[in-house]
């Protein structure tokens, strides 16, 4: 009779043991293995597990690669754009739906629907939409916008979208002034224009999810709070700006964390939509890992890049988890 002889604590431990063992092997064990691979000489199909001399050379090589520098830049820019767009749009939709009297259920489903699609589908569709030859650029022609612009003397509007290699708002010179040796960066630190359509596609897919999060939060804010504000003479705008949106702050944090790990790990959407992009304008670390591992057979380099991805995710997730645990206590 195990239940009688073991205390509740031991019972609990026993209950957790299978998942602990499985997670231990398949998550932490393999994270450790990947880390080990990143320190070895394994750079062809033939397995070579001798340690590299000097030990961290693969990481040093990787950080010097212009492509990897561009990947880090893209991850940062994409994260900012994507989270900014998604939260902005999701919050707006939630507030509009919260105020709407008719058609609420219908529109909630409509906006949430893209979330149910796979990123690959989204990527392929938006690839066609942003194709400079056949996509939305045709609308500029059909709607006569280009004719108007040409007569005004500006010339037709024909953005390259995901094929545009330019990087705007470059901060290289500022960086060079601040960081010694900053002028040796081989990439332009700025916003790659080609990344904006990708962020738009990701926003399209996930803003419905953000909206659902906020709708949940809004339903938790009682009518009493709104009434009290209105009695105090707050305008509707003021009500949202000073009361409701600040009250939604915990939702915003939770949503941002969830979106962050989507954007740090993103692969399928970018891979289907634009690939590495012109001059690596839309390359991300996950594509780098895939190509180095499975095309170049540089297992150590791919493993090193995936370790960097893990560390980036941890930088975000770990403080959040610590906060949660503290709150729980």
């Amino acid at each position, binding site marked *: 009779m195990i*239940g009688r002889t073991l205390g509740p604590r031991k019972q609990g431990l026993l*209950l957790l043991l299978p998942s602990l063992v499985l997670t231990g092997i398949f998550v932490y064990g393999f994270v450790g293995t990947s880390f080990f691979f990143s320190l070895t000489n394994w750079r*062809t*199909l033939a397995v070579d597990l001798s340690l590299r001399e000097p030990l961290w050379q693969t990481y040093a090589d990787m950080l010097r690669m212009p492509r990897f520098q561009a990947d880090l830049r893209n991850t940062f820019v994409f994260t900012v754009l994507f989270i900014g767009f998604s939260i902005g749009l999701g919050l707006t939709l939630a507030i509009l739906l919260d105020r709407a009297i008719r058609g609420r259920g219908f529109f909630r489903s409509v906006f949430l629907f893209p979330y149910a699609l796979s990123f690959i589908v989204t990527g392929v569709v938006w690839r066609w939409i942003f194709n400079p030859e056949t996509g939305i650029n045709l609308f500029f022609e059909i709607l006569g916008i280009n004719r108007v612009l040409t007569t005004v003397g500006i010339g037709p509007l024909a953005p390259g979208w995901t094929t545009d*290699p330019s990087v705007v708002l470059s901060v290289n010179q500022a960086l060079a002034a601040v960081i010694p040796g900053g002028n040796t960066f081989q990439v332009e630190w700025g916003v790659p224009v080609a990344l904006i359509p990708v962020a738009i596609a990701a926003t399209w897919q996930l803003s419905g999810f953000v909206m659902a999060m906020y709708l949940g939060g809004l339903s938790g804010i009682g009518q009493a709070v709104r009434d009290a504000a209105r009695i105090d003479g707050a305008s509707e705008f003021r009500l949202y700006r000073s009361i409701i949106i600040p009250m939604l702050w915990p939702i915003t944090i939770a949503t941002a964390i969830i979106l962050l790990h989507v954007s740090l790990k993103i692969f399928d959407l970018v891979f289907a939509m634009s690939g590495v992009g*012109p*001059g690596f304008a839309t390359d991300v670390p996950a594509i780098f890992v895939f190509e180095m591992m499975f*095309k*170049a057979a540089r297992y150590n380099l791919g493993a090193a890049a995936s370790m960097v991805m893990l560390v980036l995710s941890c930088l975000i997730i770990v403080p959040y988890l610590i906060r949660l645990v503290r709150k729980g206590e």
Partner: protein
Amino acid sequence: MAIAFGNSMNSTCAAPLWALIAFVVASCGAGSQNQSSESTVEVFSWWTSGSEAAALETVFSAYRRTFPETAVINASIAGGGGSAARPVLQTRLVGGNPPDTWQTHPGTEVLEQYVAPGFAAPLTDLYEEEGWFEVFPDALLNMVRAQGEPYLVILNLHRSNTLWYNKPLLQQHGIEIGTALTHEALFAIADDLQRQGVTPLCMGDSGIWATGIMFENTLVGVIGAERYLGLWDGSTQFTDADVRQAIATYARLLDYLNKDHAALSWDQAVDKLIQGSCAMYSMGDWVYGEFVQANLEDDVDFGWVAHPGSEGTYLLVSDGFTLARGAPNPKETREMLRIMGQRVVQEDFNLQKGAICARTDCDRTRFGPYLNWAMDTYASGVLVPTVIHGSAAPAAFQQALNDALTSFVVRRDENAFARTLAREAAMAGIGD
């Protein structure tokens, strides 16, 4: 499924787990039994597009005529140059589950990636039985041999260094291209076309390898076959003056491309050439397959010339098949390879594929004017391996070159490009 906690926890928890394990083991066992009950041969390739699949089918049907009992498993995965297939193959090889035979490129790719780690088995006896040592040229044999033993049966040959042009379009603008061209002459023509409002060069490099073909064509054209071969044994450096000049020439060519090149695939650029919205295209002769499909006539609707400076050189892109070491069906696989090397099969295959035979004794009258020209240049020219399609350098360098090109096409930093290539060549062990 209800799991009761408490008294009998151990046994109840374990039961579904054991059932699962038993199921997995049973289904694996069943799978392997099915495979061994009748004879099969699994052929792994990335030939899925119209002409490619049709060409592959000619081999399979030749095989089925001889061995109707054996089931041919066509394990092909779409994606140009094997971009999607190779990751799958790599996983299967490292995981000890090889296909019987797989498509690969001669040269470094087969020898370093598959032969050196011991994934492929030698084919010397097959070559001797079939007399292939006599019908394949030595330069080609050297690209499939390690320690004197061949490891690959070559099925087709493409020529990479061809400059294609829309003949009516050029005539319309008063331009005639003879049998050879220099880069200076090409630039003069391009300037002339540009003045007349025609985009001189076509490109579709949404897959970066396409502009890589133009780069390696330019490289061979400027530094010559011997110096180009030297790049892969270390006697030529990427920072040498003549290579630098080739890079500068390539950069100049980039200025004449259609503006939307980054949005197009290589074959969409062929469509542009056919429609006449650009005039010339430096690309391998898989382009020819597109012309054939569009029912165009050799030397009337389109013309060709060796990429400037590369007359007398045949930049070789070709495919062959291996025999896996530890292949599940070695006997059937050897027969499949034997059929791939037969003269008639090679003729049938290449007529579909738009390429020429690896054998030198194919019946020339079955092929059109362009392919006959290609055969002449194959027979008389210096054969050099492609780097873009993996024959000249290891996969690591191939990827590094693609990456360097991705940056260079946008940034045009010739110094950084040359330095990166030199560094990556050293890291990949070229010339060691």
